């Protein structure tokens, strides 16, 4: 075995889903004891990369080498055996078991009986090695998210990991907790464990990483020692793609009356201090990174998770929105980001999905549903929005992502909304359908609907926004008018690289 070979090396890895390439010809390596940061926009291919390394996905092409030997990783168990562990944003702990048992849950060959005393001692020692204080005898229920992550790191450590992948571990942590986590990462490093650190927060990367790899559009852009990288250079690498797919919007729409006015809106534990207006015919985009809590703002406006502070005014009148029904009564519509879980009843027909929120307008004689009217309306949307399906009777679940997105759009258009909130309207949608969805959104604005688009896709924001509100960690960082909405400005605010002095 070559002593100079890296711990883990990926050579020319490619992976595509259906028609879209998630990773193309990706090569990179992890050295022992290094902290290797991976950065890139959403959709750059980071999560696909992690899933290939942990055995969740199999690459279409390319080789993986572990200590210089080619390996295949068919599942997580094999990844564990190779010394690759991962912790995710949502930790996987057992709330009813105590901390020590949580740490050693995967050790089933340690003898027939539980040696609680030794278990607690070992767990205690492990936790101490990480340089933290945590009572290993307490149950895991009631642990903070940060503490649960610690438990997962300890679990990975107990399995003797060589490479620990941390996927946005700090996305929902407070500043103090982040410091602690970074300290743990350093401890791991001193023990020779390599860490793959995926984060949107540039500060953290400059504090902790040894090397930085930038991904963009599923391709490897650069791998450099952190000392050779500047913030500006990194941001440029991340966003510097050819934006030929959609032209950047040059001129703002002419807008009408102020429809929605929000002041100091907040929900305990999620976000606070949101203040903005939306006018008829205007598209306001919410930009920011994962964990910026933009979706929570949308849910508060629509009433799924009501705001606990601040005021909402619609057409100048203060309103309270406590449930989606009340939101709909104020003619607000919310097109969810998760169409499979929250957006569509997949086993049901296209037409019954479309008419669901507005069933009352399809009642005929005796209060019964007028099936013909219902299907005619759905058929109208099928043609208008170009939903590709033979008819409106087939199950929504049988459609492709882009067409499901259009069904969801039709569903909310039928409620004749005055304020329309889109949450990641083109996530998981191919390029062609994406452009169609954008055209529909623009047309709606032209028709005088006040529109909010929550998007992590910067080109999309630039293509749609009249104004762009940037959020970071539940706070409003600033609002850009169209002339200042550049990729660099938005990313700088979203990553916390700079604070906007005046809105």
């Amino acid at each position, binding site marked *: 075995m070559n002593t100079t070979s890296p711990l883990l090396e990926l050579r020319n890895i490619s992976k595509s889903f259906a028609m879209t390439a998630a990773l193309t010809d990706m090569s990179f390596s992890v050295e022992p004891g290094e902290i290797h940061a991976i950065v890139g926009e959403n959709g750059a291919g980071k999560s696909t990369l992690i899933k290939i390394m942990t055995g969740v996905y199999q690459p279409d092409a390319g080789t993986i080498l572990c200590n210089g030997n080619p390996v295949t990783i068919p599942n997580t168990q094999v990844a564990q055996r190779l010394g690759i562990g991962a912790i995710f944003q949502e930790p996987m702990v057992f709330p009813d078991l105590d901390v020590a048992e949580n740490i050693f849950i995967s050790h089933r060959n340690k003898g027939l009986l539980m040696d609680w005393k030794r278990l607690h001692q070992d767990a205690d020692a492990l936790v101490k090695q990480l340089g933290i204080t945590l009572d290993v005898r307490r149950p895991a229920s009631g642990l903070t998210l940060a503490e649960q992550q610690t438990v997962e790191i300890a679990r990975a450590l107990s399995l003797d990991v060589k490479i620990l992948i941390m996927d946005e571990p700090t996305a929902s942590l407070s500043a103090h907790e982040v410091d602690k986590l970074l300290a743990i990462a350093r401890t791991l490093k001193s023990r020779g464990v390599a860490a793959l650190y995926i984060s949107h927060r540039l500060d953290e990367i400059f504090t902790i990483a040894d090397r930085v790899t930038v991904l963009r559009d599923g391709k490897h852009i650069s791998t450099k020692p952190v000392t050779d990288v500047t913030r500006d250079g990194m941001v440029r690498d991340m966003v510097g793609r050819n934006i030929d797919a959609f032209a950047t919007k040059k001129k703002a729409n002419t807008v009408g009356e102020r429809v929605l006015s929000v002041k100091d809106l907040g929900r305990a534990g999620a976000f606070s201090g949101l203040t903005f207006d939306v006018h008829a015919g205007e598209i306001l985009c919410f930009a920011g990174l994962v964990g910026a809590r933009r979706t929570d703002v949308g849910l508060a406006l629509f009433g799924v998770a009501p705001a606990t502070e601040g005021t909402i005014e619609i057409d100048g009148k203060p309103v309270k929105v406590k449930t989606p*029904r009340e939101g709909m009564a104020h003619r607000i519509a919310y097109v969810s980001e998760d169409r499979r879980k929250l957006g569509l*009843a997949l*086993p049901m027909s296209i037409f019954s999905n479309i008419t*669901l929120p507005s069933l009352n307008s399809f009642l005929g004689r005796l209060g019964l549903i007028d099936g013909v009217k219902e299907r005619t309306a759905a058929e109208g949307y099928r043609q208008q929005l170009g939903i590709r399906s033979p008819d409106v009777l087939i199950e929504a679940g049988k459609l492709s992502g882009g067409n499901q997105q259009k069904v969801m759009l039709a569903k909310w258009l039928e409620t004749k909304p005055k304020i329309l909130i889109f949450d990641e309207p083109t996530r998981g949608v191919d390029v062609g359908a994406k452009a169609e969805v954008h055209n529909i959104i623009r047309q709606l604005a032209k028709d005088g609907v006040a529109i909010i688009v929550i998007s992590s896709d910067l080109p999309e924001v630039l293509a749609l926004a009249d104004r762009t509100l940037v959020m970071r960690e539940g706070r409003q960082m600033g609002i850009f008018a169209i002339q200042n909405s550049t990729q660099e400005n938005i990313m700088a605010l979203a990553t916390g690289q700079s604070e906007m002095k005046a809105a």
Partner: protein
Amino acid sequence: MTLQWFKTWEGLLLIILAITLTSNVILAPEFLTLQNQINLFQLSIEKIIVAVAMTFIIINGEIDLSVASIMGLSACTFGVLVNNGFGGGSAILLCLLLGFVAGGINALLITRLGIPSLVVTLAMLIAFRGFARVLLEDQGLKDFPLWFNALGRDGFLGPIPLAIVVFIVLLVAGAVVLHHTGFGRQVYVIGTNSDVARYSGVNIAFVKTVLFVASGIVSALAGLFYAGRLASVRGDAAFGFELDIITMVLLGGISIFGGKGSILGVLLSILIVLNLRNGMALVNITGHVQTGVIGILLIASVLGPNLYEHFRKTKLT
């Protein structure tokens, strides 16, 4: 009706029903007389009435195990009331009110506290049955008004007794509400994906409350029919009926996970179960074995689709 239709669950049920009917006719030619068919329905009429309400609840993704206990409690309450000087009419109203309250308690615990309906109605199965026993202890009650007993047994519309008329009305109303109203659509959506329903502005708590209250009232009504048909009541009236009721619904193609099935399927499954029981009686298979067969049917009606799905998937890959 194309050939494809027979591949659906309802189509399969229709074939099974045809086989059951044919074998019954061969076994006993007098089987097809109107009177025998009425008797057939009459023997299980209380269960099939409640099955209509249960269909809604299971499509909604919930379950109500307390129905038989509410039936028993309603029957016992009626007995106690009329034996203590209440008029038959007011006693009936009070019993229906009781069903309303019982269903309301279920609904409240399920929607307000978020306790699974399985747990709530299991506890209520015990509690309501307990109340019935408290009311009657170990005695039996008779001496109902004569017209009440007559309603339970004699023809109401020609030779058809009132209970069967009520069943048919409920079935038709159920089919209309479930398949042709906004409420029915909402019942399906909640059972399919309650998050989608909530994000679409459906008032989930309201729908569930209506269903459990309706289930309580229908169960109380069915309990009254039971008392009228037997012209007497004991503390264990309608004991264990929930098993038959749930079986009929699930066999009708209503998914235990919610969101799937139709009233037509339930009707076919009711006809199958009734005729199967009749057929078994014709070949001298006793009541207990019949219960066992129902138990097997219950498991098979869920296991069957699961296995079918499993083999279909393994064939694809």
